[in-house]
């Protein structure tokens, strides 16, 4: 695990100053922010990890890193405007300072996926933590077998990373669906699980990774099990309330594990064995 | 024939909503009506069916300015009903709390509600630009009193500590010592503003009034005593109040009005307390009267304000005496035991604005079956009408009718009316 940022300042609660260097609007309520650590120190992370983002004057929120694996000192986050901190972030312009703690947690199991089929399933903003994984896979495309992306959004307008899909479609299979279609949308309409009808998978040779709202992950996992996926081949990225990111504040505990430091990416075999239901 | 009605709507800087209508024809003042327009909260109705524990809590909500006296009077009426007798020291603590409330209320009224009148300003806050130091001093005074209330009552508005049988929480010697220190600080700060306002004087207006206050022939009592009428000198026991104080419903008002013996308007408040009990003022208060040539009885309705200023000094002296007594021999108990039984209790007390009556009946399980509360302002409404009429006539005679609205507001304010507690009847649609 990389702890470069938290190590560079001794106190892990103190955010590192960073600058918003680019803002790109993705959907009416979601934008991607490119962020650069101010003191020029290196920022290394693994796809699937997250940071704690401070908007000064408002507070902190956990946000997944959504891109930038190749850059040494900057990275991207894709944020949906929801509450206090995220709304305040949307009021900031390029050049403004934010605070960064992290990266925290464990990312996607890249090693496990190598030489296997990869099935990526994202719902809504849940595509954000999958994006660095997609970028990584595409950069080393030959290390992986068949790669499939299933993505569901509320409406066509809510689809993230619209201009990246053409490129992605060239290098992997992409299936998209929306809850509510509109004129001009000729792809699928319905919840993510309907996309399972579009192709055939080979559960034993496929690693399925997913991130989305709890209800989506519940049904997707159910479907994967029906299709015969072994528990170890299913990975999920969980969302929980979190304050510290370091397994101290206790908020993200599920039956004895911490989403922040033990996750957010978990093998289904791990969370399945927990006393508490994780998804 | 020129008939007209002059109405003054929503008099500001008083507690609650009050309109005054003056009906004039041909230079004659026909009638003055003080109309409480407070939406009704019919508190007595809420009290019925409530346990003896809750009654004082709700009664306290009669008024946010003088919640201390409402709370204590209510508790006292409950105690009377349940046959609880408080040990002397707890009684003294109660008195201290009530004095805190009176100081708090008098300070708001005299310095925040009355003072702007004499500066020709809308609000005490408007004095901020011209005299920030003075405003800051006033605020400091309030802060000091607030600290005292907090020690004794637990909170500033709606004190928490008084409960049937004594106090909900022990008040320790160190708390009392703190209160004494605070009081000394207060004395240092408050004398200047008091003198300042006494020196400003009041408008000239002589109206003979009947004054009613609680008396015990020894002190200027707040919590215990008989009902005395001045100048007649008639005295009634608390449980005789219904014989003399008679309610009157006026269609134009949501508050009940009151008359003495069904015929006479009367004045309650600081002016009545002092007109009746002035021999028992503290030395310092008497000194102050001498300094400003104040003699009793005072027959100017505006003189209620003078009486309030004198009282501020008097109460500080009484409080100091009480605190010294209590510090040298602090109360040992917090609350006395009692049994719940059926009963009827009356408390006739002095609120900052005048005589206050709480009267309840409880069933054998301690639930209220009947309640009656008579507030000072309600008793004063008829007298407000009477004196406002006299003042209007005087102003009309002087030919300064233009000032009428401003001056009548000033007169009403001199009574320190508190409408939220007096208006408790449902407003009937005409």
């Amino acid at each position, binding site marked *: 695990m990389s702890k470069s940022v938290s190590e560079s300042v001794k106190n892990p609660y103190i955010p590192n100053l960073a600058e918003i260097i680019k803002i790109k609007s993705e959907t009416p309520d979601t934008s991607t922010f490119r962020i650069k650590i101010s003191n020029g120190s290196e920022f290394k992370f693994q796809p699937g990890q997250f940071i704690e983002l401070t908007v000064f*004057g408002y507070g902190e929120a956990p946000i997944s890193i959504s891109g930038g694996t190749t850059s040494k000192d900057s990275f991207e986050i894709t944020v949906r405007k929801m509450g206090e901190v995220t709304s305040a972030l949307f009021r900031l312009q390029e050049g403004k300072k934010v605070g960064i703690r992290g990266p925290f947690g464990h990312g996607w199991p890249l090693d496990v996926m190598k030489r296997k089929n990869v099935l990526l399933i994202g719902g809504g903003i849940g595509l954000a933590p999958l994006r660095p994984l997609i970028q990584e896979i595409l950069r080393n495309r030959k290390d992986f077998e068949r790669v499939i992306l299933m993505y569901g959004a509320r409406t066509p307008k809510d689809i993230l990373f619209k201009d990246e899909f053409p490129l992605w479609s060239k290098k992997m299979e992409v299936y998209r669906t929306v809850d509510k279609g509109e004129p001009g949308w000729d792809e699928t309409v319905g919840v993510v699980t309907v996309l399972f009808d579009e192709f055939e998978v080979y559960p034993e040779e496929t690693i399925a990774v997913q991130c989305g709202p709890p209800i989506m992950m519940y049904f997707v996992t159910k479907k994967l099990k029906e299709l015969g996926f072994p528990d170890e081949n299913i990975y999920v990225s969980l969302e929980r309330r979190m304050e510290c990111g370091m397994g101290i504040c206790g908020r993200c505990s599920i039956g004895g594990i911490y989403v922040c430091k033990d996750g957010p990416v978990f093998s289904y075999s791990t969370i399945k064995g927990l006393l508490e239901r994780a998804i | 024939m020129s008939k007209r009605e002059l109405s003054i709507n929503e008099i*500001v800087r008083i507690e609650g909503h009050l309109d005054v209508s003056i009906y004039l024809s041909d230079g004659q003042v026909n009638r003055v009506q003080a109309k409480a327009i407070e939406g009704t909260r019919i508190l*007595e*109705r809420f009290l019925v069916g409530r346990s003896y524990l809750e009654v004082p809590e709700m009664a306290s909500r009669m008024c946010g300015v003088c919640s201390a006296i409402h709370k204590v009077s209510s508790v006292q009426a409950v105690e009377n009903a349940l046959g609880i007798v408080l040990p002397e020291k707890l009684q003294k603590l109660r008195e201290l709390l009530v004095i805190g409330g009176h100081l708090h209320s008098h300070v708001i009224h005299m310095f925040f509600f009355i003072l702007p009148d004499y500066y020709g300003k809308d609000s005490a806050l408007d004095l901020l630009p011209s005299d920030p130091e003075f405003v800051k001093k006033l605020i400091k005074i309030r802060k000091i009193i607030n600290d005292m209330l907090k020690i004794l009552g637990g909170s500033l508005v709606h004190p928490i500590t008084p409960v049937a049988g004594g106090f909900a929480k022990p008040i320790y010697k160190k708390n009392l010592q703190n209160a004494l220190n605070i009081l000394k600080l207060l004395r240092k700060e408050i004398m200047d503003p008091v003198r300042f306002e006494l020196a400003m004087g009041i408008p000239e207006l002589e109206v003979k009034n009947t004054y009613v206050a609680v008396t015990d022939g020894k002190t200027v009592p707040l919590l215990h005593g008989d009902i005395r009428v001045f100048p007649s000198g008639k005295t009634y026991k608390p449980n005789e109040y219904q014989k003399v104080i008679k309610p009157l419903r006026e269609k134009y008002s949501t508050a009940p009005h009151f008359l003495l013996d069904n015929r006479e308007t009367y004045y309650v408040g600081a002016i009545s307390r002092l007109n009746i009990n002035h021999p028992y003022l503290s030395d310092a208060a008497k000194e102050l009267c001498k300094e400003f040539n104040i003699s009793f009885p005072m027959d100017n309705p505006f003189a209620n304000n003078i009486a309030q200023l004198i009282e501020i000094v008097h109460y500080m002296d009484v409080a100091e005496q009480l605190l010294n007594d209590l510090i040298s021999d602090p109360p040992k108990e917090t609350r006395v035991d009692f049994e719940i039984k059926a009963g009827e209790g009356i408390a006739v007390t002095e609120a900052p604005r005048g005589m206050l009556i709480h009267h309840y009946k409880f069933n054998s399980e301690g639930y209220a079956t009947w309640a009656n509360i008579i507030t000072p302002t309600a008793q004063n409404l008829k007298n407000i009408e009477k004196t406002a009429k006299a003042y209007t006539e005087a102003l009309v005679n002087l030919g300064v009718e233009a000032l009428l609205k401003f001056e009548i507001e000033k007169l009403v304010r001199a009574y320190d009316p508190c409408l939220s507690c007096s208006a408790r009847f449902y407003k009937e649609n005409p």
Partner: protein
Amino acid sequence: MNKKVKVGFFSLASCEGCYVDILNLDDKLLDILKYVEIVESRIFGIPKRSEELDVAFIEGAITCEEEIERAKEIRKRSKIVVALGDCACSGGKFMFKNFGFTGAKINQPPGKENFITEPIDKYIKVDYYLPGCPAKREEFVELVYSLLANRRFAEKPHSVCSECILYENDCLLEKGIPCLGPITQGGCGALCPTNGRGCFGCRGLYEDANIDGLIEAFKKHNIPIPDYLYELKKKLVEAAKHE
């Protein structure tokens, strides 16, 4: 902040204790006045001006037609309406106000047999609630500052008990004193229990209020169960059905 925020203070049927308590802010009030201009308030001596307002603080419950009209009028010209105090938030006299008048028959005002006091949000939209009897002055400051700073006004999603324990108070229930702390929303700093008197629920229901549980707890401590707890329960069950 260059332009001052225009606020008005209004009261409907109330004891005005909430305003008195705001006056009790003393010097903190002067700090607030750096950012805030009071353009209408009877108690501050600022007469009716019928201006447009940024924030209207309304104290008091609604008890008659005029007050409904008044509330609507204020709403119309105010960007933000704040219900100040328990009367405005819930209709007043604490959470049990509209419930079970036990014991003797109640004197009903003529022609209005089912007279009831109403919270202002029954008639107008309310943006923020400052519960409590009186509303807590510190919370008033908190709200004003959150509005100024474009922040969300923090909810207080915890019980009074959880604040009571911070003062290391002995629980009043153990002494047989009824206390609504367990079902009441915190934020008051457990003021009443800390002063030795049971909580009366002036801040409204805690979001996970367990009325049945409280009834059981009262029973365990030999505390007579006030009727309003049963009434309250009925109301909640009904409200849940409507959802």
